[in-house]
């Protein structure tokens, strides 16, 4: 197994000079390729901050974060952007897509940024839209898609760059439970088919149930880190499990 995340003694304090907020406090985290983990915890517990640190969007005050062998705390801002482009897929809570571009163009964009060949891009687009089940919406603008469909396109975009790691910050927060379940199905499927590591933050219990590893944050510290039983069925329909 390849190590994807190796983070040591990571701390992040906001407003150190006024009213300090210790958003992340001495966190250690290790993750192998192909894991499918949930980052859980109450609001304000530091989930977004931790994901931002791992994804190279923010820099920790102390500690090292090694992603796929690269210590990203040592990278310059420009190197970080490049690092993110090639190693991290992001799914945000909402407004993931550029409104003036079609679903396809949104996914294409990241591969164009990577200077991938046209033929490569076309092939990848087709297979991704098949995987997210939106082949018929390929030329649709985001505003014509439902929230769940938009998030599925966002997942496709996150995977399009063939990253080491997909970070999804509360991807289902704005979705109804049926769409949430559907999104989780797709994520789980892609995780298996592409062997790409996923971390998603959430406080939705039904989403947590789908993870194979659950990391709980409380006040910026890892409170618990438990692996769930592998044999548990992966395709439970969450909508009917209410």
């Amino acid at each position, binding site marked *: 197994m390849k190590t994807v995340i190796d983070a040591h003694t990571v701390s992040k304090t906001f407003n150190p000079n006024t009213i300090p907020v210790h958003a992340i406090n001495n966190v250690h985290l290790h993750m192998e390729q192909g894991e499918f983990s949930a980052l859980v915890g109450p609001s304000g517990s530091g989930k977004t901050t931790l994901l931002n640190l791992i994804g190279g969007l923010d820099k920790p005050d102390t500690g090292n974060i090694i992603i796929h062998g690269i210590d990203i705390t040592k990278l310059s801002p420009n190197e970080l952007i490049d690092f*993110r482009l090639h190693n991290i897929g992001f799914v945000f809570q909402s*407004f993931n897509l*550029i409104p*003036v*571009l079609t679903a396809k163009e949104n996914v294409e964009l990241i591969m164009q*940024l990577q200077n991938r060949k046209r033929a490569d891009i076309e092939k990848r687009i087709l297979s991704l839209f098949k995987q997210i089940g939106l082949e018929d919406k390929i030329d649709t603008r985001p505003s014509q898609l439902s929230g769940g469909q938009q998030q599925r396109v966002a997942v496709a975009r996150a995977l399009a760059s063939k990253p080491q790691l997909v970070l999804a910050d509360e991807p289902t927060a704005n979705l109804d439970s049926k769409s949430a379940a559907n999104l989780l199905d797709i994520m789980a499927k892609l995780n298996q088919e592409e062997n790409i590591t996923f971390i998603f933050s959430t406080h939705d219990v039904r989403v947590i149930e789908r993870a194979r590893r659950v990391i709980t944050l409380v006040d910026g510290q890892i409170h618990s880190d438990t692996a769930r039983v592998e044999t548990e069925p992966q395709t439970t329909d969450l909508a009917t499990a209410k």
Partner: protein
Amino acid sequence: MWLLKLSWKNMWRNKHRTTITISAIFFAVVLSVVTSSLQDGVFDNLIKNVVSFYSGYLQVHKQGYWDERILDNSFEASVSLEQQILQPKNVTGLAPRLESFALASSEELTKGCVVIGISPQRENTITALQNKVIEGEYLIENDVGVLLAQGLAARLRLQLHDTLILIGQGYHGATAAGKYFIKGIVKFGSPDLNEQSLFLSLAAAQDLYSANGRVTSYVLALKNPADLNSTAESVRTKLGGTYETMTWEEMMPEIIQHIQTDKGSMYIIQGILYLLVCFGIFGTLLMMMVERKYEMGMLVAIGMKKIKLMQLLLVESVLTVFSGCIVGITVSIPIVYYLNKYPIRFTGEMAKVYEEFGFEAIFPSSTDSGIFITQGLIVLGLGLLLSLYSIIKIAALNPVTAMKK
């Protein structure tokens, strides 16, 4: 390529706003092109008038003549001198003149006047004097009659075919006196010329002033007036220090001054116009940057280099400004050509000012392509300058804070 496509799509993200921005640029371009072309047309015309009605583009005199315009500063006309003057390619013709003062008397009245001895034919090719004849006939070579300016005729209470007497001082202090028959009456817009001038054939003038073979100036016609200064310089070097070669600008600095003052006020008006447009563009730019802050943060988050994002916004700005420019210039062209074909006629005060200089206040607009290019470039430059704002904003963009709601 995809960047260009994305820019284009972004540009139309808010159709209303883009339309308003483009219209603002459009109006600025149309207004400034049309005003510039009118102004240039006015000045071109002014210069053409000044030059063609009297001074010519260039004049050759004896050194010192322009400062002291007396017959003793005249010079010997000669074919070889004329050939030398005509050598530069840009000089297409010349007309000799012998100018001086005299008292003109009718039976009851005496008035001071300017006597201009001309070669009727050569003079006509440069200043079209024949067109100014309103009564009687134009002069022929060696004519013994005179052309009297209408105002002077009125002051002397003289009419066509009357006679008048000229008395003055000739070359080297000789007495000048002669009796002349009024062959034609000429009319000038310029009060100065109209009230004071009188034309003789060169031979008659030389005879009157005992200045045989002498002239006070050669008036030159140019093929390309734009090369005025270089042509003046080459004539100057050909002739050496005995002669002075003066451009119309040197002879009539007040006209250049008038043009510059007018251009100055024009630049101020255009400046205000552009300032308004800038405020408009900047306002929409500010709004756009606020609206798209999250999205830009996200693009940088997922791996778009800031320089790419800057390019994207720059292309958007250029496309927007360019569209305004293109539409503006496209619409200006027919307007300008129309105003060239059907010129504006000034009335009132403005007309008077121009009439004092001696011409009709009719002004076809200039169709010089330089105007379109200059105004287009100014607007484009301003657009680029303004988009520096978005570039600075992007440079300072932090994806994490930009994406915070």
